[in-house]
């Protein structure tokens, strides 16, 4: 039988037992390290290769270092962690699996494209609330070059990026969730459905994802009974300028009106004008690094009390897209609050 105290509706669960985010680590690449959030990252890699021989290996190293750092900051050891949850954009989640293969911690590899960070925290919190784990290590990451190589054109090909294109964030973010400790708590999870609004343009992923974000946000407010002003910040993952404008339009149609508390991690991490990132940042690392670096500190320093983090993902498969398919998308909402 389903516990109706935990289950608030079709999409939303209440995390009953306390799940604290006791530590985070945010590692970023050079371009991110020149952006508006530069002071909030734990480590900035000056070299896009991160001392490795390939971009894929560099991406794996970001994972290894981010997970290690989050663990170290939490004061826990490898033996204290019951599960590790991670995913990325590379085929077969190569960034995570190769980066984390030496950790010797039970591992669940997950894929939600750029929404993976939200998916990891969602499952991790449910594992703790369900009594299956005490400490869970969650994270996600991406690398601009390996993502371009896999999904688009060679980097040195002289192409022009359209204004709707986004820029994949290089880096990795990791958090340690624990049933005991100090820090902001995960209080509520709203899991999104796959939404496909019929967008085919892979250079306009914000447009493909805005429908999924709208769906999960509206489900969250309906099922929790909360109002948009309940949160100090409502931050989507990587919708960029175009996606954010669409999201606001369609939320307004459902009478969900935000004042100034809605933003997008992709618009926080880069200065689009100065850094030439067009519509904004994207990739698994976008929400992972922005939360782990910036918003976590905002919460622990009591600058904000409640945040609804909504990592968004375009579930592109390059082979199927070339067969003429549209882009299915997903978004997961995680409510994180200071006591």
């Amino acid at each position, binding site marked *: 039988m389903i516990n109706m105290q935990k289950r608030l509706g079709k999409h939303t669960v209440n995390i009953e037992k306390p799940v604290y985010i006791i530590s985070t680590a945010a590692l970023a690449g050079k371009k991110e390290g020149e952006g508006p959030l530069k002071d909030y990252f734990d480590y900035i890699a000056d070299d896009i290769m991160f001392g490795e021989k390939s971009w894929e290996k560099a991406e794996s190293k970001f994972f290894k270092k981010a997970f290690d750092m989050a663990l170290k900051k939490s004061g826990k050891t490898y033996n204290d962690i019951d599960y590790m949850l991670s995913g990325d954009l590379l085929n077969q989640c190569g960034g995570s699996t190769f980066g984390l293969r030496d950790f010797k911690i039970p591992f669940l590899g997950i894929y939600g494209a750029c929404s993976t960070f939200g998916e990891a925290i969602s499952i991790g919190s449910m594992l703790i609330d369900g009594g299956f784990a005490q400490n869970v290590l969650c994270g996600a990451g991406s690398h601009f070059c390996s993502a371009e190589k896999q999904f688009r054109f060679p980097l*040195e090909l002289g192409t022009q990026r359209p204004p709707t294109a986004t820029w994949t964030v290089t880096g990795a973010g990791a958090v340690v969730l624990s049933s005991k400790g100090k820090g902001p708590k995960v209080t509520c999870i709203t899991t999104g459905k796959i*939404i496909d609004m019929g967008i085919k343009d892979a250079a306009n992923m914000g447009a493909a994802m805005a429908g999924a974000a709208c769906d999960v946000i509206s489900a969250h407010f309906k099922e929790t009974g909360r109002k948009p002003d309940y949160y100090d910040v409502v931050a989507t993952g990587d919708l960029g300028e175009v996606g954010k404008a*669409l999201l606001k339009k369609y939320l307004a149609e459902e009478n969900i009106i935000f004042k100034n508390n809605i933003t997008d991690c992709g618009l926080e991490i880069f200065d689009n004008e100065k850094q030439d990132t067009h519509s904004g940042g994207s990739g698994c690392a976008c929400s992972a690094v922005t939360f782990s670096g910036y918003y976590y500190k905002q919460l622990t320093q009591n600058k904000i009390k409640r945040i609804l983090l909504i990592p968004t993902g375009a579930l592109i498969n390059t082979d199927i897209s070339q067969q003429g398919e549209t882009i299915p998308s997903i978004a997961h909402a995680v409510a994180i609050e200071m006591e």
Partner: protein
Amino acid sequence: MDTSESKKKEYQKSVKNLSPNSPIIKNCIWAFFSGGAICTFGQILNNYFKSLSFGEDNTALLVNIVLIGMSAVLTGFGLYSKMGKHCGAGTIVPITGFANSMVSPSIEFKTQGFILGLGAKMFTVAGPVIVYGITTSIIVGIAHYFLAG
């Protein structure tokens, strides 16, 4: 979110309205002058090699070698993509663009070895151009043979 067909159509319309267009006029001007500059440079080379009495055929060959070589080197140093960002079609359409499309995947896939990496993947962008270029030339050749005989 309503995902009915009519809502999807309306959504796609909103996407069109809210998505900024590429600056077509600016792009065209850049492409015109940069593409023109490459071609002018090619003509200068052509005149130069002719003046050295290389003959018609060898001159054409030498011009191509120099342009392709320059493009490959610029691609290797990461400069061609920077030019391409502004020049667009201006740097894609001339033969320098073709060289760039071969060299750029080669650089990326070198990490996967010389056979399955560099050797196989260097044609990912240029391959279709070769296939359809040759196919078209054969069709035109056959047509020419029968019609213009």
